[in-house]
């Protein structure tokens, strides 16, 4: 059965630069998110947005300084977190939400799903939640047959984990020893249904992987460094040709499933606990300051710089034009 991933983190192993980068990436994601919600309030973006606030560490811990541009990801329903961590320019993501030609789809509009940046290995996402499981094994098979060491990371929530394709995918990945890492971002809820209400598992979702002979574990997804250690082991294993890994990252969402969700199905005390004690950014900030790696001022500078960067990205996306009506006839066939 799935073990809880534990490791003594040696902070000295990390340079100040690297640690600052993790902070920077997490704050970038959060600020992106907060500004997007603001744009929504201003009526510029539709309400079909699934905020990733509270789980930035899952994405940063599994991508930053681990994945290369040539490694592939299929992001999940809180996927802006992963797109940003993988390096998709902010203006492009905002452009997709705003529907301007700056977007990755050049004006078709894309929100959480359908942004893509193949040059950075961001291969898209399915609107039919969880259908990326099958596509991901194809991508991993592709890397293997072309003799590259490219790794495929497939992200999904605990809700998507109940889709049948997960099992078809795990069977292939285990059978063909594919270079793929499954990252289940378990935030406890599929919209309003809890994991316990919708999954027949022994204890953890990761237990399923055990049945397919796939190494697996459960990790505290809100600890960015622990997440990083765990995923980099899995990625190295995949690169060595040793096959897939299944990682269940435990986290929680600070906001509802979508903007406008009343979120009253969650016990306010539980939410309060996660916000106060398990916020990945707050905890990481405390860690690096207490260990004398960064000063409050260092991090403040990072935040200020990011604020500027984000405002510029929004400006660029907003100033770009809307597509001409002919846009809908472009790009159906190669």
């Amino acid at each position, binding site marked *: 059965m799935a073990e809880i991933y534990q490791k003594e983190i040696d902070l000295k192993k990390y340079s100040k630069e690297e640690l600052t980068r993790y902070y920077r990436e997490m704050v970038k994601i959060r600020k992106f998110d907060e500004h997007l919600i603001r744009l929504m309030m201003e009526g510029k973006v539709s309400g079909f947005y699934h905020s990733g606030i509270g789980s930035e560490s899952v994405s940063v811990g599994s991508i930053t300084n681990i994945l290369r541009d040539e490694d*592939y990801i299929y992001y999940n329903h809180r996927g802006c977190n992963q797109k940003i961590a993988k390096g998709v320019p902010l203006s492009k993501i905002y452009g997709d939400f705003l529907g301007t030609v700056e*977007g*990755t*789809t*050049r004006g*078709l509009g*894309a929100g959480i799903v*359908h*942004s*893509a*940046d*193949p040059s950075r290995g961001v*291969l*898209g996402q*399915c*609107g*039919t939640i969880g*259908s990326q*499981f*099958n*596509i*991901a*094994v*194809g*991508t*991993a*098979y*592709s*890397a293997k*047959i*072309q003799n590259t060491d490219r790794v495929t990371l497939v992200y999904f929530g605990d809700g998507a984990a109940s889709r*049948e*394709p997960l099992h*078809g*995918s795990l*069977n*292939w990945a285990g*059978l063909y020893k594919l270079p793929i890492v499954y990252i289940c971002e378990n935030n406890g809820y599929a919209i309003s249904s809890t994991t316990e209400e919708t999954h027949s598992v022994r204890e953890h979702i990761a237990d399923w992987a055990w049945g397919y002979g796939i190494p697996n574990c459960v990790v505290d997804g809100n600890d960015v460094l622990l997440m990083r250690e765990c995923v980099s082991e899995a990625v190295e294993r995949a690169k060595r040709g040793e096959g897939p890994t299944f990682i269940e990252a435990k986290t929680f969402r600070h906001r509802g499933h979508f903007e406008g969700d009343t979120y009253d199905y969650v016990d306010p005390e539980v939410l309060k606990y996660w916000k106060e004690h398990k916020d990945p950014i707050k905890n990481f900030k405390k860690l690096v300051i207490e260990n004398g790696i960064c000063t409050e001022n260092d991090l403040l500078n990072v935040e200020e710089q990011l604020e500027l960067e984000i405002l510029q990205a929004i400006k660029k996306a907003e100033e770009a034009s809307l597509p001409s009506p002919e846009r809908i006839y*472009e*790009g*159906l*066939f*190669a």
Partner: protein
Amino acid sequence: MSTSVKVKTITMREAIVEALHEEMERDEKTVLFGEDVGKFGGINAITRGLYEKFGGKRVFDTPIAETTIVGAALGMAITGLRPIPELQFGDFVGIAFDEVFNKLGKWRFMHGGQMEVPVTLRLPVGIAGGAGPEHSQSPQALFMHAPGVKIAIPSTPYDAKGMLKTAIRDNNAVLFFEHKLLYAMKGEVPEEEYLIPLGKADVKKEGKDVTIIATALQVQTSLEAAEKLAKLGVEAEVVDPRTLAPLDMETILQSVRKTGRVLIVHEEPKTGGCGAEIAAQISEQALFDLQAPIKRIGSPDVPIAQSIYLEQFYRPSEDQIIEAVKELMEY
């Protein structure tokens, strides 16, 4: 076929096997997979010899998992391979409906046109000897409603080979429907390599009195009916669209304008079959060239019985075609 071209007479099965061998030899990015397609050579013996020739990495048996077969094909395609998955029976496309309907045809478009999807999905279809309601269907018309996929449906060994080779080289998703009863049908195929473009209909027989538009096995049935009609003094023109998407309306309309009478024949249930769309387009574009209402012969709108005796009543027959043409000629 002109006499200067060296030809051989082979079955449609052999024609498809040849196309697969030639294309896999030509491009090392091609990968072929499906249920029992490896050492066994496919339940319809279409992938014979490929495993031995190209090895287990490029030709592999998959678990019984149509969803994964088609989904994986998409993942392979957008990362540089040219996958040729097979569904053992075309009916099974229902299991992978999301992957075909929502993914193969839409992935490129919905992600801004940034990826190519060179998948050729082979799907055997048609009534073929008591296979029952979930192994005898012809679901191709479903996908005329799915922008982004091409639909090929050959009726001769010559077309099957030339079109399959084109489909494999195409950078888009092609659904390749093969009628199981045609696998054993013989026909002339050039010795030399050739390609048939997708989106080009073929006039299988010229005639001036009535246009019969038919697909797959029904092209053959229509040709036989046309011969009998000729003896009755009716010259039928038989048009095979060959691909339902893109649909070559130009060739179809040209024939309709010449004859003024249209009969559409297919093995799909009549309601919502490909004939419905073809008839609608003809009436939109050539209503006043018609001398009679457009007629359609399809399968009845009920599931296909497993009984070998009963299943024949689902397949359009020569007699039905002759009767329908006679009716058209009365206008």
